[in-house]
Protein backbone atom coordinates (compact mmCIF):
# COMPACT_ATOMS: atom_id res chain seq x y z
CA UNK A 1 0.00 0.00 0.00
CA UNK A 2 1.81 3.08 -1.26
CA UNK A 3 0.71 6.37 0.25
CA UNK A 4 1.56 9.69 -1.37
CA UNK A 5 2.34 12.88 0.53
CA UNK A 6 -1.00 14.31 -0.53
CA UNK A 7 -2.86 11.24 0.77
CA UNK A 8 -0.92 11.37 4.02
CA UNK A 9 -2.05 14.94 4.72
CA UNK A 10 -5.66 13.74 4.39
CA UNK A 11 -5.08 10.89 6.87
CA UNK A 12 -3.43 13.05 9.54
CA UNK A 13 -6.52 13.38 11.73
CA UNK A 14 -7.59 9.75 11.38
CA UNK A 15 -4.08 8.82 12.52
CA UNK A 16 -4.24 11.10 15.55
CA UNK A 17 -7.76 9.87 16.39
CA UNK A 18 -6.55 6.28 16.17
CA UNK A 19 -9.08 5.18 13.55
CA UNK A 20 -6.77 4.19 10.67
CA UNK A 21 -7.21 0.88 8.90
CA UNK A 22 -4.31 -1.55 9.25
CA UNK A 23 -3.30 -0.91 5.63
CA UNK A 24 -3.20 2.85 6.07
CA UNK A 25 -1.30 2.55 9.34
CA UNK A 26 1.35 0.45 7.64
CA UNK A 27 1.41 2.72 4.59
CA UNK A 28 1.96 5.78 6.74
CA UNK A 29 4.71 4.12 8.75
CA UNK A 30 6.57 3.19 5.58
CA UNK A 31 6.06 6.66 4.11
CA UNK A 32 7.32 8.45 7.22
CA UNK A 33 10.43 6.26 7.29
CA UNK A 34 11.74 8.11 4.25
CA UNK A 35 9.73 11.35 3.94
CA UNK A 36 11.01 14.09 6.25
CA UNK A 37 8.59 16.58 4.71
CA UNK A 38 5.58 14.64 5.89
CA UNK A 39 7.21 14.16 9.30
CA UNK A 40 7.47 17.94 9.52
CA UNK A 41 3.85 18.25 8.39
CA UNK A 42 2.55 15.90 11.09
CA UNK A 43 4.66 17.62 13.76
CA UNK A 44 3.11 20.92 12.73
CA UNK A 45 -0.40 19.44 12.90
CA UNK A 46 0.35 18.24 16.45
CA UNK A 47 1.73 21.67 17.34
CA UNK A 48 -1.37 23.36 15.93
CA UNK A 49 -3.63 21.21 18.11
CA UNK A 50 -1.46 21.75 21.19
CA UNK A 51 -1.38 25.51 20.59
CA UNK A 52 -5.19 25.59 20.47
CA UNK A 53 -5.24 23.85 23.86
CA UNK A 54 -2.76 26.42 25.16
CA UNK A 55 -4.96 29.40 24.28
CA UNK A 56 -5.38 31.47 27.44
CA UNK A 57 -8.75 31.12 29.20
CA UNK A 58 -11.02 34.06 28.76
CA UNK A 59 -10.74 36.58 31.55
CA UNK A 60 -14.48 36.62 32.10
CA UNK A 61 -14.64 33.03 33.29
CA UNK A 62 -13.77 33.67 36.95
CA UNK A 63 -16.28 36.49 37.28
CA UNK A 64 -18.97 34.42 35.65
CA UNK A 65 -18.33 31.45 37.92
CA UNK A 66 -18.45 33.55 41.09
CA UNK A 67 -21.62 35.17 39.75
CA UNK A 68 -23.15 31.73 39.29
CA UNK A 69 -22.16 30.67 42.79
CA UNK A 70 -23.67 33.78 44.38
CA UNK A 71 -26.87 33.43 42.38
CA UNK A 72 -27.12 29.79 43.38
CA UNK A 73 -26.54 30.69 47.03
CA UNK A 74 -29.26 33.33 46.96
CA UNK A 75 -31.63 30.89 45.29
CA UNK A 76 -31.05 28.44 48.12
CA UNK A 77 -31.80 31.17 50.68
CA UNK A 78 -35.11 32.01 49.04
CA UNK A 79 -36.63 28.71 47.96
CA UNK A 80 -39.42 29.12 45.45
CA UNK A 81 -42.82 28.58 46.96
Amino acid at each position, binding site marked *: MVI*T*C*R*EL*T*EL*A*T*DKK*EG*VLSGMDRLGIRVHLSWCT*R*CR*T*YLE*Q*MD*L*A*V*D*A*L*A*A*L*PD*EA*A*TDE*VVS*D*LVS*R*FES*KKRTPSE
Partner: protein
Amino acid sequence: MSRVARSMAPSHAEDVVQETWAAVIDGLDRFEGRSSLKTWVLRILSNRAKTWIKREKRLDLEHIFTEEAAVEETAVAPERFSRIGNWSAPPAAWSERTPEAIVLRMETGMLLARVVEELPQAQRIVVTLRDVEGLSSDEVCDILGVTEANQRVLLHRGRSKVRSAMERYLSEP
Protein backbone atom coordinates in the same frame (compact mmCIF):
# COMPACT_ATOMS: atom_id res chain seq x y z
CA MET B 1 -18.59 29.17 27.97
CA SER B 2 -18.97 32.40 26.02
CA ARG B 3 -16.28 31.09 23.68
CA VAL B 4 -18.37 28.03 22.91
CA ALA B 5 -21.50 30.19 22.58
CA ARG B 6 -19.71 32.44 20.09
CA SER B 7 -18.49 29.48 18.08
CA MET B 8 -22.03 28.18 17.72
CA ALA B 9 -24.18 31.30 17.42
CA PRO B 10 -21.90 34.33 17.03
CA SER B 11 -24.68 36.89 16.65
CA HIS B 12 -26.65 35.61 19.66
CA ALA B 13 -23.84 34.52 21.96
CA GLU B 14 -24.94 36.74 24.84
CA ASP B 15 -28.50 35.46 24.69
CA VAL B 16 -27.23 31.89 24.62
CA VAL B 17 -24.98 32.47 27.64
CA GLN B 18 -27.74 34.16 29.66
CA GLU B 19 -30.29 31.48 28.86
CA THR B 20 -27.75 28.81 29.73
CA TRP B 21 -27.01 30.34 33.14
CA ALA B 22 -30.71 30.58 33.88
CA ALA B 23 -31.23 26.93 32.91
CA VAL B 24 -28.14 25.83 34.86
CA ILE B 25 -29.30 27.59 38.04
CA ASP B 26 -32.79 26.17 37.62
CA GLY B 27 -31.57 22.67 37.01
CA LEU B 28 -28.61 22.43 39.36
CA ASP B 29 -30.70 20.47 41.89
CA ARG B 30 -31.38 17.92 39.20
CA PHE B 31 -27.75 17.58 38.09
CA GLU B 32 -26.97 13.96 38.83
CA GLY B 33 -23.26 13.89 38.29
CA ARG B 34 -23.46 11.20 35.66
CA SER B 35 -21.53 13.47 33.32
CA SER B 36 -19.02 16.10 34.35
CA LEU B 37 -20.46 19.49 35.28
CA LYS B 38 -18.69 20.93 32.26
CA THR B 39 -20.31 18.61 29.71
CA TRP B 40 -23.68 19.01 31.43
CA VAL B 41 -23.46 22.81 31.16
CA LEU B 42 -22.25 22.57 27.57
CA ARG B 43 -25.12 20.29 26.62
CA ILE B 44 -27.57 22.89 27.93
CA LEU B 45 -25.66 25.61 26.09
CA SER B 46 -25.64 23.59 22.89
CA ASN B 47 -29.41 23.15 23.04
CA ARG B 48 -29.94 26.87 23.57
CA ALA B 49 -27.56 27.69 20.70
CA LYS B 50 -29.29 25.18 18.41
CA THR B 51 -32.59 26.94 19.02
CA TRP B 52 -31.03 30.25 18.00
CA ILE B 53 -29.37 28.72 14.95
CA LYS B 54 -32.67 27.23 13.86
CA ARG B 55 -34.45 30.55 14.39
CA GLU B 56 -31.81 32.43 12.43
CA LYS B 57 -30.99 30.01 9.61
CA ARG B 58 -34.13 27.84 9.57
CA LEU B 59 -31.80 24.85 9.58
CA ASP B 60 -30.96 22.23 12.19
CA LEU B 61 -27.36 22.08 13.33
CA GLU B 62 -27.25 18.46 12.15
CA HIS B 63 -28.08 19.66 8.63
CA ILE B 64 -25.42 22.34 8.73
CA PHE B 65 -22.88 19.69 9.78
CA THR B 66 -23.91 17.27 7.05
CA GLU B 67 -23.83 19.94 4.37
CA GLU B 68 -20.48 21.35 5.43
CA ALA B 69 -18.98 17.86 5.63
CA ALA B 70 -20.21 17.08 2.11
CA VAL B 71 -18.31 20.00 0.55
CA GLU B 72 -15.15 18.80 -1.22
CA GLU B 73 -12.13 20.31 0.47
CA THR B 74 -8.47 19.38 0.76
CA ALA B 75 -6.30 19.66 3.88
CA VAL B 76 -3.49 21.31 1.90
CA ALA B 77 -3.79 23.42 -1.27
CA PRO B 78 -3.51 20.98 -4.23
CA GLU B 79 -0.92 23.19 -5.98
CA ARG B 80 1.56 22.34 -3.24
CA PHE B 81 1.84 18.80 -4.58
CA SER B 82 3.30 17.46 -7.80
CA ARG B 83 1.13 15.61 -10.29
CA ILE B 84 1.95 12.29 -8.62
CA GLY B 85 1.13 13.62 -5.14
CA ASN B 86 4.55 14.41 -3.66
CA TRP B 87 5.25 17.76 -2.04
CA SER B 88 6.32 20.41 -4.54
CA ALA B 89 6.07 23.21 -1.95
CA PRO B 90 6.75 21.30 1.30
CA PRO B 91 6.05 22.73 4.77
CA ALA B 92 8.91 25.00 5.88
CA ALA B 93 10.36 24.76 9.38
CA TRP B 94 8.67 27.01 11.94
CA SER B 95 10.34 29.70 13.98
CA GLU B 96 8.53 28.56 17.15
CA ARG B 97 8.38 24.91 18.14
CA THR B 98 6.40 24.80 21.38
CA PRO B 99 2.66 25.48 21.80
CA GLU B 100 3.36 28.22 24.36
CA ALA B 101 5.82 30.00 22.06
CA ILE B 102 3.35 29.81 19.18
CA VAL B 103 0.55 31.30 21.26
CA LEU B 104 2.86 34.06 22.43
CA ARG B 105 4.05 34.77 18.92
CA MET B 106 0.45 35.02 17.69
CA GLU B 107 -0.23 38.07 19.86
CA THR B 108 -0.77 35.98 23.00
CA GLY B 109 -3.35 33.94 21.19
CA MET B 110 -5.44 36.77 19.75
CA LEU B 111 -4.45 35.95 16.17
CA LEU B 112 -4.98 32.24 16.81
CA ALA B 113 -8.42 32.88 18.31
CA ARG B 114 -9.28 34.88 15.21
CA VAL B 115 -8.19 32.03 12.95
CA VAL B 116 -10.67 29.79 14.78
CA GLU B 117 -13.42 32.42 14.57
CA GLU B 118 -12.98 32.61 10.82
CA LEU B 119 -13.42 28.87 10.23
CA PRO B 120 -16.69 27.78 8.61
CA GLN B 121 -19.38 27.31 11.26
CA ALA B 122 -19.31 23.53 11.77
CA GLN B 123 -15.48 23.37 11.70
CA ARG B 124 -15.32 26.25 14.16
CA ILE B 125 -17.69 24.51 16.58
CA VAL B 126 -15.81 21.20 16.46
CA VAL B 127 -12.35 22.76 16.80
CA THR B 128 -13.54 24.92 19.71
CA LEU B 129 -15.05 22.00 21.61
CA ARG B 130 -12.36 19.41 20.83
CA ASP B 131 -9.15 21.40 20.81
CA VAL B 132 -9.76 24.63 22.71
CA GLU B 133 -12.10 23.16 25.36
CA GLY B 134 -10.48 19.71 25.33
CA LEU B 135 -13.59 17.52 25.07
CA SER B 136 -13.42 13.98 23.67
CA SER B 137 -14.93 12.99 20.35
CA ASP B 138 -17.72 11.06 22.16
CA GLU B 139 -18.57 14.07 24.31
CA VAL B 140 -18.70 16.40 21.30
CA CYS B 141 -20.93 14.08 19.24
CA ASP B 142 -23.20 13.60 22.25
CA ILE B 143 -23.45 17.31 23.09
CA LEU B 144 -24.07 18.40 19.50
CA GLY B 145 -26.04 15.39 18.30
CA VAL B 146 -23.85 14.87 15.23
CA THR B 147 -22.30 11.71 13.81
CA GLU B 148 -18.74 10.72 14.65
CA ALA B 149 -17.83 10.60 10.94
CA ASN B 150 -19.00 14.16 10.28
CA GLN B 151 -17.36 15.35 13.45
CA ARG B 152 -14.04 13.84 12.39
CA VAL B 153 -14.14 15.20 8.84
CA LEU B 154 -14.86 18.71 10.11
CA LEU B 155 -12.21 18.46 12.81
CA HIS B 156 -9.71 17.43 10.14
CA ARG B 157 -10.50 20.38 7.89
CA GLY B 158 -10.59 22.85 10.74
CA ARG B 159 -7.25 21.68 12.14
CA SER B 160 -5.70 21.68 8.66
CA LYS B 161 -6.75 25.29 8.20
CA VAL B 162 -5.36 26.25 11.60
CA ARG B 163 -2.02 24.68 10.67
CA SER B 164 -1.85 26.50 7.37
CA ALA B 165 -2.77 29.82 9.03
CA MET B 166 0.05 29.26 11.54
CA GLU B 167 2.38 28.58 8.67
CA ARG B 168 1.86 32.16 7.47
CA TYR B 169 3.00 33.53 10.84
CA LEU B 170 5.69 31.03 11.74
CA SER B 171 7.48 30.01 8.54
CA GLU B 172 11.08 31.01 8.63
CA PRO B 173 11.99 33.30 5.72
